[in-house]
């Protein structure tokens, strides 16, 4: 009955109104097409503008010299623009981060998917999500205050701002990505494999290590690649702890040496460079290189996951991508390479570590035939449990450090007063308001565009070439490092469109950054609406748009809202995109119009932590407020999600 009422506007269609409504349908479809094409347009604009401002350096210095030039000294009397040390720095940091992160993540993922009881799972999964929700500038702040000091003291070196610090910190930041994607991969291995293996009399550990993990291997690979993408694209955290000397560690495995990544270079130098200079174009050249690297990384992860999804749905009988023999060889080579790298790094940390690990390893292999499967299983489960505990401990340490030190700073004045004495005294009111303005504007722009794009993708087209192009555009946008958005926003919105450093420029830049999240979550919730609902409505003679607006969208609203709030949380914690487009450090006033610059919490924290000595109290206060704000958004999103889930069930 309810159904009929919804569509009964269609029944009395005469000749003329029929034509009119066809026209209306067509124009609605066109509008949605443009919102969907927007992602592709943005990607091309980003590339275009980075190239426009970056290409002079490729002409002046030459692409090859730019890439392999051994020295980066843009402010020397004879400036040198070789980004080789920066590329190596990025590589080394990523490598170290993965060595730290992959074993922990895998252990944790296995624990969550195979060993945890439902109740423990219900604690662990949100904990991992929480780890993902901490803004990168807060990670950077924690790294700068706690981690670098810890490294300085433990290794007795003059400064802890090192490759090691950067790798550990970025490794921590990569944990949630790798854990959640590989946990998903392991959990979706068909249940029959597990039963088959256990029914043969394999132990749980044998089942995990010989059937489940191998079957989930491509998903785990994709997880690691996505983690690498996260690390390579990260700016603020690495900038705050890596020491930033543009040198190649000497010797190359000296993890206590400072180094500098591509992203950090942009973060540090973009603010001081004069527009149009050779240095300026060199920075855009770096952004181009960075963009290309991250695009390759993300597209390969997407390709692997895509292949997996097809394999899961396709009937059995298709040849696997890599023949099993070759696959074994690849896995073996990867293991050996990993082992060699690990040993080199261990040696670098302390001379006795490598021999000890080697000895333990060979003891293990020598003793293995004599150990019962039960003993092996016990030791493996111990390691897995330990990895999970370490991940939890990391989360607890970070949260408790910020909460314990931040609470004394919190007061009514702190959140209602403007800063004084460079932020050492006074409050952060303008920063809170600025951040809220920024995210409100960003979501106001991103929501219609993103929802429109998702509606087009799900409701108006079949999978084909057009959707493929659009999806690739969205994936590319999703993989673009936030600092690249910052540069693009500066070149395009601030300069080219002449908006100046302003609230508006920041809002647009952030909107572009969260657009893929909005599109994806909306797509997900639209896809969850059963096809039968649409068919039911169309069969009653409703038009496509009537069906979408009256039948499909209403039940999808909770999903869309959740996605929007998650995007807000993400945008609120970002620093790199607004650093050159929207913010000022200290302002006593709120902006009068969208063309004024604003203060923002993440940037305020960044400057307090790196440039203002003696602001310890207010640093922690700002970090805590930012953390609470972001986590608050996430909590609301989760509450919305569960609320509607329960309602639709009950």
């Amino acid at each position, binding site marked *: 009955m309810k159904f009929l009422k919804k569509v009964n506007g269609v029944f009395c269609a005469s000749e003329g109104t029929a034509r009119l409504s066809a026209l209306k349908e067509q124009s609605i479809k066109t509008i949605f097409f443009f919102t969907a094409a927007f992602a592709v347009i943005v990607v091309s604009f980003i590339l275009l503008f980075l190239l426009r401002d970056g290409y002079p350096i490729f002409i002046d210095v030459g692409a090859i010299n730019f890439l392999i030039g051994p020295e980066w000294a843009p402010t020397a009397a004879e400036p040198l623009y070789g980004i080789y040390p920066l590329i190596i720095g990025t590589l080394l940091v990523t490598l170290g981060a993965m060595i730290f992160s992959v074993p922990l993540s895998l252990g944790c993922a296995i624990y969550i998917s195979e060993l945890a009881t439902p109740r423990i799972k219900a604690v662990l999964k949100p904990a991992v999500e929480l780890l993902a929700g901490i803004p990168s500038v807060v990670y950077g702040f924690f790294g700068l205050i706690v981690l670098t000091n810890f490294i300085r003291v433990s290794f007795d070196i003059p400064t802890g701002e090192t490759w090691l610090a950067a790798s550990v910190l970025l490794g921590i930041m990569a944990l949630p990505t790798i854990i959640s994607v590989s946990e998903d991969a392991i959990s979706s291995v068909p249940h029959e494999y597990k039963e088959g*293996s256990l029914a043969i009399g394999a132990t749980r550990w044998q089942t995990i290590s010989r059937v489940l993990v191998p079957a989930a291997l491509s998903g785990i690979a994709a997880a690691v690649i996505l983690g690498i993408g996260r690390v390579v694209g990260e700016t603020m955290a690495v900038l705050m702890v890596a020491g930033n000397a543009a040198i190649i560690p000497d010797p190359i495995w000296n993890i206590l040496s400072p180094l500098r990544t591509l992203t950090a270079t942009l973060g540090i130098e973009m603010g001081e460079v004069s527009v149009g200079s050779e240095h300026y174009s060199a920075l855009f050249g770096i952004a181009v290189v960075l963009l290309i690297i991250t695009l390759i990384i993300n597209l390969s992860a997407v390709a692997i996951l895509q292949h997996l999804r097809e394999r899961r749905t396709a009937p059995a009988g298709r040849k696997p991508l890599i023949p099993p023999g070759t696959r074994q060889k690849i896995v073996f080579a990867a293991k050996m390479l990993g082992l060699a790298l690990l040993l080199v790094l261990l040696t670098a940390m302390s001379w006795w570590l490598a021999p000890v690990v080697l000895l333990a390893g060979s003891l293990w292999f020598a003793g293995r035939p004599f150990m019962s499967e039960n003993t092996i299983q016990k030791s493996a489960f111990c390691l897995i449990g330990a990895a999970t505990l370490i991940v939890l401990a990391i989360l607890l340490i970070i949260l408790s450090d910020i909460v314990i030190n931040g609470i004394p700073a919190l007061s009514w004045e702190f959140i209602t007063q403007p800063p004084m004495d460079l932020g050492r005294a006074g409050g952060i009111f303008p920063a809170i308001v600025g951040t809220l303005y920024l995210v409100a504007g960003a979501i106001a722009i991103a929501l219609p565009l993103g929802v429109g794009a998702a509606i087009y993708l799900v409701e108006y087209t079949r999978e084909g070439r057009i959707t493929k192009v659009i999806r690739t555009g969205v994936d590319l946008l999703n993989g673009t490092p936030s600092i690249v958005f910052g540069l693009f926003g500066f070149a395009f919105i601030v300069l080219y469109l002449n908006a100046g450093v302003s609230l508006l420029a920041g809002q647009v830049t952030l909107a572009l950054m969260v657009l893929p999240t909005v599109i994806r979550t909306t797509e997900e919730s639209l896809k969850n609406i059963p096809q039968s609902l649409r068919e039911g409505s169309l069969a009653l003679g409703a038009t496509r748009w009537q069906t979408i607006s009256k039948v499909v969208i209403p039940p999808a609203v909770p999903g869309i809202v959740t996605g929007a709030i998650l995007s807000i949380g993400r945008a609120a914690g970002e620093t790199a995109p607004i650093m050159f487009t929207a913010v000022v450090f200290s302002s006593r006033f709120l902006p009068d119009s969208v063309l004024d610059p604003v203060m923002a919490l993440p940037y305020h924290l960044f400057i307090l932590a790196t440039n203002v000595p003696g602001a310890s109290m207010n640093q922690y206060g700002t970090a805590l407020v930012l953390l609470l704000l972001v986590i608050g958004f996430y909590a609301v999103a989760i509450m919305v999600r569960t609320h509607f889930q329960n309602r639709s069930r009950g």
Partner: protein
Amino acid sequence: MSDAAIITTNNLNLWYSGKHALESVSMKVPKNRVTALIGPSGCGKSTLLRCFNRLNDLIDNVKITGEITLDDENIHAPSLDVVTLRKKVGMVFQKPNPFPKTIYDNVAYGPRVHGIRDKNELDRIVEQGLRHAALWDEVKDRLDDSALGLSGGQQQRLCIARTLAVEPEVILMDEPCSALDPIATSKIENLIDMLKEDYTVIIVTHNMQQAARVSDYTGFMYLGKLIECGRTKQIFEHPTEELTENYITGRFG
């Protein structure tokens, strides 16, 4: 029953989060014979089968009372290792579930997890298992291909070979032919006939003819209870219970 029993259950009860799925089942499974379990859908055949190798342990909120013995040993005794039990009681599932590995690695999986490393020994076991499962001739030239490339019937025989390679005492089969065509089905039925020389087979089936053809003993289950159990010939020709007769003759419900 005259034959010696290998598995006995005594007053076995099972609850799935409160739902009573097996009600005081007491039965004897004779050694080196084929026992068929029949009964309407949802009556608890799979559940009973999965009790014998304690695969129900994997499911949350399962409560079991009563006793199951294998070779006069209580399989729920704390001293008994469930891995050892499953080594002795192999299982073939309704849907073929080869691992996403090569054909060779699928069959070698069991021996490997039980500690056999010697390549020649493994080769021998793999060949023997595949021959036993009447699959050897079809796959001997492609042992290194993925098992997922086999047809459904071949996959099911591979799963049987995989089970045989562990040399269990009992083989549980849960509707092993339900996804197969008549030719593959008859291959597997012949196989079961051969298997009983060395193994005890318990097979769940919805196919009356199949039960009559392959089994020596038959148990009829209804709503979680074992209604009656005895020699197949007797159950099919002179059932003592009216329920059984109705079910077998198709006059049900």
